[in-house]
């Protein structure tokens, strides 16, 4: 199996795929997890809003930095500790025991 780390969290995928295919696969998985997580949060918020009669004066929107979330257009992908330029994702074949890590771009300063 190939281990894919998304923001430090491991996911296992089958080998013998190109890096591009693997990234599309984990994108789909990540999207499903994210939807489930959002549905769960909405359900909790709905229950809380029924309990709370008072609205807070200042509302803070928490940063939505899910550990599984990523955007393929804004990540760096490392294959066995080497970043693979995006143009080479479709050609690179991944093999058994390879390690892939995804890093979200950080732009703040």
């Amino acid at each position: 199996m190939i281990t894919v780390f998304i923001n430090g969290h491991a996911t296992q995928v089958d080998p013998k795929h190109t890096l591009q295919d693997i990234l599309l696969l984990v994108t789909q998985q990540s999207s499903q997890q994210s939807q489930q997580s959002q549905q769960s949060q909405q359900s909790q918020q709905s229950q809380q809003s029924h309990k709370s009669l008072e609205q807070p004066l200042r509302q803070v929107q928490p940063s939505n930095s899910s550990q599984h979330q990523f955007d393929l257009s804004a990540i760096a992908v490392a294959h066995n500790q080497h970043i693979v330029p995006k143009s080479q994702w479709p050609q690179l074949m991944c093999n058994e025991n390879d390690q892939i890590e995804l890093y979200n771009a950080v732009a703040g300063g």
Partner: protein
Amino acid sequence: MTQQSNKTQSLSNEQFERYYRQILLTEVGEQGQQALLEQHIIIVGTGGLGSHVAQQLGAAGIGHLYLVDDDSVERSNLPRQILFDETSIGQSKVLCVANRIDASNPDLRVTNYCERFTLEFADALLCENEGLQQAYLDNKLWVLDCTDNMSSRQIINAWCAQKLIGLVAASVTAFSGQLIVVNGQNNIQAGCYRCVFPNKDVIQNCASAGVLGPTVAVMASMQALTIIKQILHITPPDDQLHIFNAMTLNWQSIFRHRDPQCPACRHWDKQDTKKSSNHISNEALL
């Protein structure tokens, strides 16, 4: 001109006393300190990262700092941009930083530009400032990217890649920090910033995702340390993406590789581009 000619001589007694702890380091010495004094650095962005970096480099004896930022101080900046205080709110960031660091070191020449960094601005800056132009030709010019958005980062990278000017880009959001050194003169194989992050549409920054002041200060210190070591040539060319996890305090370094199709740096194969005034294609910025 007198100041310039003085700076090519050995350190004065006052300078020797001021920088003694740095000179004590064999990797620095008097010669290294002189190199720092002769260096010109453009700092783009004088918020969380830039204000810290400017203060540290000014104190360390970098001779010439050019500060570029069109932003003003807001109250929400104060927890992490600690050169500012309540009286700074509403004032230009570059002016506030320049005023604070200018007084800290008589060797320091600070020039500030309350403008947004665009290709046009950068070209004009290089054309119209003789000292900067000479530093560029003498390989005594570096750029520090301390901005807070990916669009600006791609513009800065494209300009530095085109002009073969060394770039140290640091960034920080939430509990993550990243640091990249780009140098088209001695580190072609590692590529540029865009080879790692080709997209300009990154949503998250400090305003949207939050950040703690000490995390910003860590990344600013690393950026200042990195540029000093690069100027002194005491480390090999940096071909890695350095990632800081402020939650675990771990650093991770991953090897970078040039993207042969990268529109920003593909001309690096052709030498002798430094003194040319080639126009940067729109493709390099999209």
